[in-house]
């Protein structure tokens, strides 16, 4: 028995999975631009991903903004704190924290439910039924989720930017006793277009990633309830890891010099 054989086998299986996924992603993208479209399905996903994720994204960014202000204050002792804290909060929230935290929270919420819903449809033959009703499941199930994911995550992140910054403001003004209007004008001065734009680009990429991983794992799941459970876990884990990797890549593209 060759001791390298299991490693080789695992590697081949991995590459097989990557190839399989690549074919799925390319197919899904090509269906995004070809009719028929299902506006009703897109709307349903927009509400599900955008609207119903607002509370979780709002809570996450609010408390993160608050914590950030406290931590920044405890680390800064000199007199510049009134300028430094609003700057740190708004830059960190818009560039990194809102997109990454919103991405991870939505990956848990939406990635899991997409994989579970589509996976259940797969194992109960509902996807086959779509085919026999002359409806392409890629177009009916996958495309609306991809579009809604890529569109709604930036909206959520924009909301998260505002709420996260507001969290810092709450701490700055009510706990640290900063002047309210000075805090706001310092925040405004520190706000940069590239920070917000890069955050929104990240959000769109994360939203697409979450949806494509959820759909892929659901679509290819098999083996009953256990298979659907595995698909759900894999969708969330792979989306979360890809979000962190993509975050690094996009940060390099925008900010390295």
């Amino acid at each position: 028995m060759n001791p390298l054989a299991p490693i080789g086998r695992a590697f081949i299986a991995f590459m097989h999975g990557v190839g399989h996924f690549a074919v799925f992603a390319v197919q899904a993208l090509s269906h995004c631009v070809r009719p028929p479209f299902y506006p009703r399905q897109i709307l349903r996903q927009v509400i599900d991903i955008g609207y119903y994720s607002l509370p979780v994204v709002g809570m996450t960014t609010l408390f993160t903004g608050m914590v950030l202000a406290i931590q920044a204050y405890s680390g800064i002792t000199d007199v510049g704190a009134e300028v430094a804290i609003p700057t740190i909060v708004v830059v960190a929230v818009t560039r990194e924290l809102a997109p990454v935290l919103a991405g991870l929270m939505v990956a848990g919420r939406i990635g899991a439910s997409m994989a579970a819903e589509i996976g259940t449809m797969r194992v109960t033959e509902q996807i086959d039924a779509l085919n026999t009703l002359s409806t392409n499941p890629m177009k009916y199930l996958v495309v609306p989720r991809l579009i809604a994911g890529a569109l709604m995550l930036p909206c959520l992140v924009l909301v998260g930017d505002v709420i996260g910054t507001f969290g810092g403001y709450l701490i700055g003004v009510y706990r640290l006793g900063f002047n309210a209007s000075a805090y706001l004008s310092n925040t405004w001065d520190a706000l940069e277009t590239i920070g917000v734009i890069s955050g929104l680009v990240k959000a769109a990429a994360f939203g697409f990633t979450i949806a494509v991983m959820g759909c892929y794992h659901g679509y290819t799941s098999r083996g009953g309830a256990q298979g659907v459970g595995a698909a759900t876990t894999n969708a969330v884990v792979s989306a979360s890891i890809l979000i962190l990797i993509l975050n690094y890549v996009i940060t390099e593209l925008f900010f390295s010099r």
Partner: protein
Amino acid sequence: MTDPQATAAGRPAKIELRDVHKAFGSKHVLNGVDLTIAEGESVVVIGGSGTGKSVMMKCILGLLKPDAGSVHVDGRDTTHLSGSERDRLMRHFGMLFQGAALFDSLPVWQNVAFGLTQAKRLARAEAKDIALSKLAAVGLGPEVGELSPAELSGGMRKRVGLARAIATEPDIIFFDEPTTGLDPIMGDVINDLIVKCVRELGATALSITHDMASARKIADRIAMIYGGRIIWAGPVSEIDRSGNDYVDQFINGRAEGPIQMQIREG
């Protein structure tokens, strides 16, 4: 052994399987299935659990790609159709799945109307009228239309699945184990509905089952699948004198005989 190619006299073949093979990994499920279904005929394929009946049906529908061999519908080779060509072909088909496969995100009437609103692009109001009339045809009142599939019993699910399969008035209808999991009386109700719906549409029907009572009621012709092949096919009236030991063992439900049950799937 009766020639599996022999069809009801004189009618053109609606569906033709020629030497269809399908394997999953090292497991060969279909090993050269030949089957011809004439226009307007009702064929029932019988065979034990796990012998590849559903796989055969999915190969015809294009849900699975045969590894070798071909599938012809109306004389046209449809084995390698995909995309919108496949979607167009599917308008000729209706299918009742084993577990009914109702869309649980949609109320019952939208399930039934699905082929009308999505594929035929009918207006919702019009599609709803047709859906309710199809529900009535399978013995379900309009109040059922507003329920969610999760609220239905097994027999009702099958009926809704049947209504959905006939809603677009297809010329070919497939039934995958229509009576499995139902009590004998509900099973017979479904059999009667199938016979009635198929006759009204003048459709070609292919059913798979291991329920002989159902097979005798629905079929014009019966074919038996074993070892990945059709080993016998003939008119329903000849099933009791097929002269085939495998068929005899199956229809009489005997444990002893040439068919050895695979206890372990392998």
